[in-house]
C-alpha cells in the first residue's frame, strides 16, 4: 500500500469509529491523517507489541479531541484489534473521546484540556535528553489551541533548553470550535511567531500531502533547534459532507446514511 491508499484506509476507520457511535470530533481527526500515516509508516521508532518500549519515539497529540484519528492509526499498526474501534465512548471503553495514556496502548500522554499536552511533550523531551536515549518527541497542536498562553510558555522552555529532539506540528486548518480562527482570535503570522520564539520553522503548503510532510520531517531532523512544522490542512479533509460542514464539522452528528455515503466515496464507489 502506498501513502495515499493508507490514508484512505485510515479515513474509513475514522468514519466507522465515529459513525458507529453517531457523533464525534471528525473535522480535526481527518485533517491529521496524512501526518499520522507518514509518522507511523516512516519515522516513529515504536513497537506495537511493546507499547512501553524504553527509548521509543513518542507522539503526544495535544489536541486530544482527535482521539478517533489516533485510534485508527494505532489500530492499523496492530496495537489493538479492530473491533475496539466500535467501542468509542461506549461503557467501559478503552477509546474515549480524548486521548488517555492509561487506557489505550500506544497513547503517550493523556490530553484533552488544550495546551497541556504540548508542555507535557517538552517535559518528555527534556527527560529524554537527560536519559540520553536518542528518542525523537513528536507532538501535534491545533491552531485554535495555539491561542492558549501555555503553548508559548512551553515554546520558550524548549528553545532555552535546546530541545532539538522535538518535532512539533501545528494542524493549521484555520478553524476552531466556534468558527474561523481569524474571526475569533487571529494567530498570524504563525511562522514568524515560532521563529521569534527560537524554533526552526518549516511551512508545509499542503499539509494533507504525504510527500510534502515527509520532506519537512527529513529536514527537521537536521535542525539544532526544536522544530515547528506548520501544516496547512483542511478540517474535515477527504469526506465531502465533513469538508462542506465547515466549522460545523468540529464535532458532528453522523447518521448511518452519512456513514454509508462517506464510505462509498472513500472506496471510489460514489
Amino acid at each position, binding site marked *: 500500500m502506498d501513502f495515499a491508499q493508507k490514508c484512505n484506509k485510515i479515513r474509513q476507520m475514522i468514519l466507522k469509529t465515529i459513525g458507529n457511535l453517531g457523533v464525534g470530533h471528525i473535522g480535526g481527526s481527518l485533517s491529521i491523517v496524512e501526518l499520522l500515516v507518514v509518522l507511523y509508516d516512516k519515522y516513529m521508532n515504536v513497537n506495537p507489541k511493546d507499547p512501553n518500549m524504553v527509548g521509543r519515539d513518542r507522539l503526544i497529540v495535544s489536541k486530544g479531541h482527535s482521539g478517533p484519528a489516533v485510534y485508527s492509526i494505532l489500530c492499523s499498526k496492530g496495537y489493538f484489534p479492530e473491533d475496539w474501534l466500535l467501542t468509542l465512548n461506549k461503557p467501559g471503553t478503552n477509546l474515549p473521546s480524548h486521548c488517555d495514556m492509561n487506557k489505550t496502548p500506544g497513547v503517550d500522554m493523556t490530553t484533552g484540556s488544550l495546551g497541556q499536552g504540548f508542555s507535557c511533550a517538552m517535559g518528555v523531551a527534556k527527560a529524554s535528553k537527560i536519559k540520553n536515549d536518542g528518542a525523537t518527541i513528536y507532538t501535534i497542536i491545533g491552531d485554535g489551541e495555539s*491561542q492558549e498562553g501555555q503553548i508559548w510558555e512551553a515554546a520558550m522552555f524548549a528553545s532555552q533548553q535546546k530541545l532539538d529532539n522535538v518535532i512539533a506540528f501545528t494542524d493549521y486548518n484555520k478553524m476552531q470550535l*466556534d468558527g474561523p480562527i481569524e474571526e475569533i482570535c487571529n494567530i498570524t503570522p504563525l511562522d514568524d511567531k515560532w521563529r521569534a520564539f527560537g524554533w526552526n520553522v518549516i511551512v508545509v503548503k499542503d499539509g494533507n500531502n504525504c510527500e510534502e510532510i515527509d520532506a519537512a520531517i527529513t529536514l527537521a531532523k537536521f535542525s539544532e533547534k526544536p522544530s515547528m512544522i506548520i501544516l496547512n490542512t483542511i478540517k474535515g479533509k477527504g469526506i465531502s459532507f465533513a469538508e462542506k460542514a465547515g466549522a460545523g464539522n468540529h464535532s458532528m452528528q453522523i447518521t448511518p446514511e452519512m456513514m454509508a455515503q462517506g464510505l462509498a466515496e472513500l472506496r471510489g464507489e460514489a
Partner: protein
Amino acid sequence: MEMRQVLAAELEKLMAQNENIVLIDADLSKPNGLAGLKSKFLERAMDIGISEQNMACIAAGMSSYGMIPFISTFTPFATRRICDQIAVSCAYAKQNVKIIGTDPGISAEFNGGTHMSMEDIGVLRSIPEIVVFEPVDNNQLKKALPQIVDYYGVVYIRAFRKETPDVFDESCDFDLFKALKIKDGEDLSIFCSGLMVHETLLADKELKSQGINAEIINIHTIKPIDRTAIIESAKKTGVVLTVENHNIIGGLKSAVCEVLMEEFPVPLRAIGINDKFGQVGKMPYLKEQYNMRAEDIVNKALEVLNLKCK
C-alpha cells in the same frame, strides 16, 4: 427548552437593560448557546479564543472599569484551569466577575474524564467571598440571573446545557441566598442540588410508598450556604442525606457537614461522586456507575434512617 437557550435569552434581556454587562466566551460560545449574542451586542459580547486564564483576567480588568463581565466555558476550564486567576484578579481584587461553567459533573457525558469536573464547587468554595450557585431548572436560572447581576462580587453559575425536567414553576419564590424547601417532612432531611433534585424527587415517590416522609430542601447556593435552613430541618428530622452531582469531598456534603458538625450534629450520609474521576458515557450509565440513581438515593435514605437516634 434547553438550559442554554434560557441562559442566552435571559442574558440578552439583561444586557439590553444594563449596558455595563459584557459577555466573554473562549471558543465554546456555540456549545454554551451564547453565539447568537455576538451579533446582537457587537461591542459587548465577544469570543476571545481558547484562552481561559486570559479571559478571567480580562474580565477582572473590565470589572475594575465598572463593567459586569460574564465569562463562559465548560466547568473544568471555568474553575480548576483558571483557579489562580479567579482567586487573585477576580476574588482577592474584589471584582464583579460572573463565571458561567457548563456541563458539570457527569453531564459532560462523551467529553469524558478530562472534561468532567467533579471538584469545581470545592475549588471555588474554598476561595473567600465567591458565591457558588447551581440552578436546578430553567425557572430557577431565570429568577437567579437578575439577582446575580444586582449582587456585587464573584458569582459562579454551575449550569447544565441541555434539556432539564422542570422542578419549579414560574410563580415559585426565589431568593439567591435562601435555601428552597420543596417539601415538608419529618422523617429525614434531604439536601440536594442541581440535576440531582429531580432524581431526589423520583426517589421520594418510592420513600413515600414505604411510609417515609422526607423533607426535601434544594441548596441551590452552596456558598454562602443557608445555615438556618439546614439547622432547622436537621433539628426537626434528626437525620440527613445530601445528594449532589459532584465529588462528595468539597461540595454540598462537605458544606452541610461544616454547618451541622458545629451547630447540631446528626447522622448523615451522602449521594454523589465518591472521590472518583470521570469517564465517557451517557448520563443514565454514569448515574449507575457512580450510584446516583433514584434507587441509590432510596437505599441511602433507608441506611441513614437506621442510624437515627430513637
